[in-house]
């Protein structure tokens, strides 16, 4: 009897580790030149909800020369058993040890998964630091949004892929196969790969520091290695491979439904939002493509729900006609449609009404800030009237629970802005009562996160508020939101603090990550597993001050740790946006208003790609 079978009865949710799901791809190990393990540094239910995994799994397994298998971070109970029995980290398709693969590809979706990256390498029996790995070890690569500031992981990752992965991974695999056929040494391959567009090999760059700790320069150590790495961007969403036979888990996952990406990118230009900055330009999928993929997906997965995903689905030009067509085609067999992200306006409510005919839960809206002044600062084109009108429609249509997302600690925030959050929440609640929502059922949840400055955004130079101040502001809100029907949720400020440190950190933080791993940090995104004291100890051991990273205002004329990674947005644009923010000036959405001159289209030689037609999406007049 094999080891895994002995361990599985002893752990929670063993289905996380068994594989065997519908649409799983098992390829002949001996026939694949390149074996890639896709590693998601979080638990199965989270990782399997990630569309990027399904896309890359499809792209790589469609090649005749390569195979891709999946591996997730084992939950601590499973990890304990694996270590106790000497079972190394294995992939779910072949149950082979991850260290037998040629390449381990991590996706970095959030900073708080970094400890899991290290822990997974250790569980796989692979040296953590790239410079300790030899020819016998897999190549460790990483991508995803956090790769836009790869520096904190620079010591551990051999190669990063910056930007959209579906075409970049093909180029990477081609160059890998070619190098393998020439028996190229690991080091020489990395030097060659550094020339592939979008590829960043951190060991080929030297960072120099000033006496005050700031970076003085980042430069390649070899000739032929590019000085800056530009992100990869897919030009045509209709032509890019999209999986219509995704793996369907046998156990419930977080997003347990069909996910169809209808557009990529967002032009709203919220100044705190990294996704809105790094995934430009907007590219929409043609309705015919969406409908064809939906039909295939329903047949191939058996799911009962189609989610139209994107950063802002109500912005998808033909959204209404696509929803109508999907409902018409699939409602008969019990398949519904859902929208994950809704704008705060009437049009979005109308859409929500349309798709929620079958299932009715709560509705989530994100005004982000409590006053018009602060919403202008962050360029969130939502007015109080929008919010009141939207919630009124929601209550009238029978929703009884509304969730409102806000952020605290935004640049220029004052007490007035906090009062604004309290006032808005109470007004929404009052609106619900007026609309006749049942007293016992009516619920307005105010969910508050803390502002984390992110690389490649206009707020990248801004400091985070000290932890103690954020805590005071949370307490202030908690006191003001005490009323029947109001629920107040907030994020752990210590977690937000660590996020800010790593979001804007440099490669010196590698020592901290390694210490944190040795101190047992893992699953830091899960509050029950986050130990702030351990992290502080990891900083002490490394002789570094976390506040220096999170609380410092970065200067325009200093070299940012991610200066050599290019999102396509010009530094001038980000600076201008930052200044406009502080002046309380809004900037148009480039869909409707004037080009904001972010520099992306000319720089990367791309253009926004709209699905055409008249368009059903009503464009807001909220943004002047």
């Amino acid at each position, binding site marked *: 009897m094999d080891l895994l*079978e002995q361990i*599985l009865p002893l752990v929670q949710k063993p*289905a996380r580790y068994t594989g065997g799901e*519908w649409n799983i791809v098992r390829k002949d190990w001996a026939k694949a030149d390149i074996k890639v393990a896709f590693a998601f540094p979080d638990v199965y239910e989270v990782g399997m909800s990630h569309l990027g995994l399904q896309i890359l799994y499809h792209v790589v397994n469609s090649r005749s020369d390569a195979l891709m298998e999946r591996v997730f971070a084992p939950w601590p109970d499973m990890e304990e058993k694996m270590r106790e029995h000497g079972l190394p980290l294995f992939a779910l398709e072949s149950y082979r040890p991850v260290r037998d693969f040629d390449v381990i590809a991590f996706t970095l979706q959030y900073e708080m998964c970094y400890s899991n990256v290290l822990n997974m390498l250790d569980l796989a029996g692979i040296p953590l630091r790239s410079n300790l790995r030899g020819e016998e070890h897999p190549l460790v690569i990483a991508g995803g949004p956090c790769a836009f500031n790869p520096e904190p992981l620079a010591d551990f990752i051999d190669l990063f892929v910056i930007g959209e992965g579906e075409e970049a991974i093909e180029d990477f695999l081609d160059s890998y196969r070619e190098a393998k056929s020439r028996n190229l040494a690991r080091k020489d391959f990395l030097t060659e790969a550094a020339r592939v567009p979008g590829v960043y090999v951190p060991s080929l760059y030297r960072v120099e520091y000033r006496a005050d700790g700031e970076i003085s320069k980042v430069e390649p150590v070899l000739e032929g290695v590019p000085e800056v790495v530009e992100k990869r961007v897919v030009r045509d969403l209709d032509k890019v491979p999209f999986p219509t036979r995704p793996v369907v888990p*046998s156990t419930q996952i977080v997003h347990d439904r069909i996910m169809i990406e209808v557009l990529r990118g967002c032009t709203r230009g919220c100044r705190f939002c990294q996704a809105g900055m790094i995934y430009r330009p907007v590219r929409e999928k043609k309705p015919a493509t969406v409908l064809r993929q939906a039909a295939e997906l329903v047949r191939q997965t*058996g799911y009962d729900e189609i989610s139209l995903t994107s950063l802002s689905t109500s912005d998808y030009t033909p959204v209404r006609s696509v929803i109508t067509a999907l409902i018409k085609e699939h409602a008969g067999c019990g*398949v519904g449609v859902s929208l994950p992200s809704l704008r705060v306006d009437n049009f979005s409510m109308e859409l929500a009404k349309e798709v929620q005919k079958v299932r009715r839960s709560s509705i989530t809206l994100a005004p982000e800030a409590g006053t018009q002044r602060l919403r202008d600062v962050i360029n969130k084109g939502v007015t109080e009237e929008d919010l009141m009108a939207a919630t009124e429609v929601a209550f009238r249509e029978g929703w009884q629970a509304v969730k409102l997302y806000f952020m605290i600690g935004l640049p220029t925030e004052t007490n007035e802005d906090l009062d604004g959050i309290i006032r808005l929440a109470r007004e929404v609640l009052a609106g619900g009562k007026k609309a006749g929502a049942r007293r016992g059922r009516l619920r307005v949840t105010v969910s508050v996160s803390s502002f984390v400055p992110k690389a490649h955004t206009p707020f990248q130079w801004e400091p985070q508020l000290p932890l103690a101040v954020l805590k005071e502001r949370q307490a202030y809100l908690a006191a003001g939101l005490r009323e029947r029907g109001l629920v107040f949720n907030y994020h752990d400020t210590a977690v937000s603090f660590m996020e800010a440190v790593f979001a804007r950190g440099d490669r010196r933080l590698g020592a901290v990550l390694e210490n944190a791993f040795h101190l047992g940090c893992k699953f830091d995104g899960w509050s029950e597993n986050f130990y702030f004291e351990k992290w502080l100890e990891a900083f002490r051991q490394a002789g570094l001050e976390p506040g220096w990273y999170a609380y410092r205002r970065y200067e325009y004329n200093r070299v940012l740790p991610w200066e050599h990674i290019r999102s396509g947005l010009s530094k001038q644009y980000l600076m201008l946006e930052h200044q406009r923010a502080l002046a309380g000036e809004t900037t148009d959405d480039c869909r409707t208003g004037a080009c904001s001159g972010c520099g992306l289209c000319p720089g990367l030689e791309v253009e926004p790609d709209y699905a055409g037609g008249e368009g059903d999406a009503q464009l807001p007049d909220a943004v002047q």
Partner: protein
Amino acid sequence: MTPSYRMQYSKKGPARYISHLDLLRSFERAGRRAGLPLAFSQGFNPHPKISFAAPLGVGTAGEAEYADIELTADLPVGEVFRALSGVLPEGLRLLEVRSIPDQSTSLMAAVDCATYRALANLSRPFGRKELDSAISSFMARPEIWAERKLKTGGKKKQNIRPGIFTLSGKSENDIIILEAELKAGSNGNVRFEEVLEALMETVDLPLKSGFVLSRTGVFTRFGEEKKALWQDY
């Protein structure tokens, strides 16, 4: 009434770890992939009309399990079998499908008992006589108490001896196999894990591994006779 079908299937390999709730979802999705016209319950949260004979513990294999499924159209059983057979996840295998009449007893209510097998590795051979006598003295006890967790969080002692109909074992070289017939269904259910745990307290087996469990059959009773769930009608 909508047309109903009874399925007999096995649940092995990775599918052993599919929980009861997830199994319902797995069959629903398989049904949709098969293009079957699934019947749904009415109401706020419609769910497919699929019911199971008896829940199977996570990790225990099932060699001949049963589920009923309702469709909105009357299809030949052969067609249902073929359509569903090709779309099940690894480890779930359809063995047979029969059409069932409208007025038949609900599947769950028909269940009276189930048979099980447990297999484990031994670090050294264990004498047959020793095993037999351990089992007979175990079965000779008038009462065998098992502790059960209650939904309220508390614990409750329960005498499971009346629900153990048969128990036998054999050991060959380094493998031990135990088999049992236990009470099952809505009128009282004895889990094989409970029986094994109680047995292990009385006999010191040189186990090298945990037990791997299978439910080998689920039955209804007519007097003294044990019958497969097909026999209900």
